[in-house]
């Protein structure tokens, strides 16, 4: 059981509040993504769990053990740093063996475990290389191997893929996920890349201004963001505001659409759920908008629209897209089940 919990964790630097009473549970064996814009406190949260940041208030529990007063070196964590932080004066094997040597694991056993973990990250034959002789992806793997060889209770990843180029990053995402599944270790990672968070995580937490504003499974959070910030931050969203009239929602311009069940006066429609057509569709939730730009991008195309002084975006499949005019008045519509109610911030 290696669940990690933080309870009412607060930290401020001078007058700037980095963490504001954050409580969160990181389930055992899960892959948890902490997502947020820069300055949202996600890195501070990760570093507080690691022990590099001493919180002003609150508690961190690793396997039900309170660790706020435990120094980093006694917390039994594994951490992968943004720049990998491999020791340049040691070979790959020595880097990986470092944590084992510190724990006085017998040489024979240490050797076997280093070989095993290098095999796991597919770096078997490169044990004698120096870090500067490796590519970015290989360094990333060494950093992973070094962090997990000591069998820590929790693995912390600080923007682990941000130093890699795009193509390599996608490969490493798959690789990270595979390694994490094979080892089954509770993993918490920090990223500002929402796509990466959605791909890798079992659960994600979204932070803003030091507060946790949403937590849940990626699909759940994506399809029902709950508030304006999350809707805009996690993917793109068209946010439409209206006022409640007779159980319906009256949008600007007087069009009435179905009101979400929770009684919100703001709705979000994802670009992929917004249909664009020349003729008026037979759904009630339809608006007259002005098509400003059509951007062709292979299988899908993007439409940039203007409606009541607001810019909207729609993504359409090729056949639907080809049918549209270059610009001019069109109809946009959506199924009511795709319109999600939002709380204002």
């Amino acid at each position: 059981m290696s669940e990690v919990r933080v309870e009412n964790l607060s930290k401020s630097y001078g007058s700037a509040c980095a963490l504001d009473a954050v409580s969160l549970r990181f389930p055992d064996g899960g892959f948890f993504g902490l997502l947020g814009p820069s300055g949202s406190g996600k890195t501070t949260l990760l570093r507080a769990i690691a022990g590099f940041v001493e919180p002003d208030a609150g508690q961190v529990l690793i396997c039900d053990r309170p660790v706020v007063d435990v120094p980093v070196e006694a917390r039994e964590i594994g951490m992968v740093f943004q720049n990998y932080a491999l020791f340049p004066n040691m070979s790959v094997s020595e880097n990986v063996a470092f944590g084992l040597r510190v724990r006085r694991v017998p040489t024979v056993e240490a050797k076997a475990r280093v070989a095993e973990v290098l095999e796991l990250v597919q770096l078997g034959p490169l044990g004698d290389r120096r870090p500067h002789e490796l590519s970015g992806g290989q360094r990333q793997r060494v950093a992973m191997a070094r962090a997990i060889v000591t069998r820590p209770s929790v693995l912390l990843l600080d923007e682990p893929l941000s130093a890699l180029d795009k193509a390599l990053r996608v490969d490493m995402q798959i690789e990270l996920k595979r390694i994490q599944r094979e080892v089954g270790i509770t993993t918490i990672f920090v990223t500002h890349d929402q796509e990466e968070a959605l791909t890798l995580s079992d659960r994600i937490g979204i932070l803003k201004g030091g507060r946790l504003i949403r937590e849940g499974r990626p699909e759940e959070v994506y399809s029902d963001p709950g508030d304006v910030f999350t809707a805009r931050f996690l993917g793109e969203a068209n946010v439409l505001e209206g006022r409640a009239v007779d159980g319906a929602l009256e949008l600007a311009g007087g069009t009435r659409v179905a009101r979400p069940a929770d009684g919100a006066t703001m709705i979000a429609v994802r670009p992929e759920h917004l249909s664009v057509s020349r003729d008026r569709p037979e759904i009630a939730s339809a608006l007259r908008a002005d098509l400003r730009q059509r951007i062709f991008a292979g299988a899908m195309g993007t439409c940039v629209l203007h409606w009541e002084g607001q810019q909207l975006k729609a993504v359409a499949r090729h056949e639907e897209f080809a049918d549209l005019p270059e610009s001019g008045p069109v109809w946009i519509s959506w199924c009511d089940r795709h319109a999600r109610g939002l709380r204002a911030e």
Partner: protein
Amino acid sequence: MAEAGHLARTDRLRAAGLLAPAYLWLTVAVFLPLSAMAFFSIITDVPFGDTEWRVTAENYAAFLESPTYARLLWKSVLLGVKVTALCVLIGFPCAWVLAKMIRGRSREALFLLVILPFWSNSLVRIFSWAIVLRGNGVLDKAVNAVWPWNVEVNLLFSEWAIVIGLVHSYLPYVILTAYLALQAIDDSLIEAARSLGAKWWTILWRVVLPLSSSGLIAGAVLVFVPVVGSFMEPRILGGRMGTYYGTVIEDQFVAVFNWPLGAALSFILLAVVLAILAVSAPVLRKART
């Protein structure tokens, strides 16, 4: 091939042109004085005025004939080792604090304090130490002001006084070179070592020292070489105790006016220092990896 050869030739010419001022400077400032000294060291008398002189090896033979010179050289080397060791032991922690624990303006202020000894005249510095260390001096008075019973603190004219004066003069070299080396170590390396369970001494021994050893060694060499040949500090702070190899060389030039012997002794010192560095180089290189 011919093309490449031609290119290489113009490159060489350009390189020679660019290096010429440096070589000229080395010739004027290093090679010529050293040659003059080498010449002095193999003649019988200074070739000034109408003195008679001839080429001889007597000056070098003098070093071997009297055991005093070798004994004093050994004493100077030991002094060099002591002062270098103290400079490293004090300078490295100072550099660590400057590089890793202090940020912003207070770092600049501390840097100024570190470099300050460089800005004061060395004679003034040494005489100040004499005033501090002598009996009934500043140190004596300060100690007696807090100590419950009367003690006499007189460090002047002892080896301690010489070591203190030298350490004070040469400490900035070690602090600055170690600071540069430590500055180059990424903080995340230390954090990574901590996250892997390493205590501070393991981090120091396995990560920080190996990565900063080149800077430390450079600083140690910068201290050791001049200390072995030092003569001002031993003379003023050592008094009767302060006869070292460096003071003997100085005597030959200033007091006895036996330049040939002084030159010969200087070259023997140069050879011994180079030999020590050559012998310790493999050991030090090994320490770096």
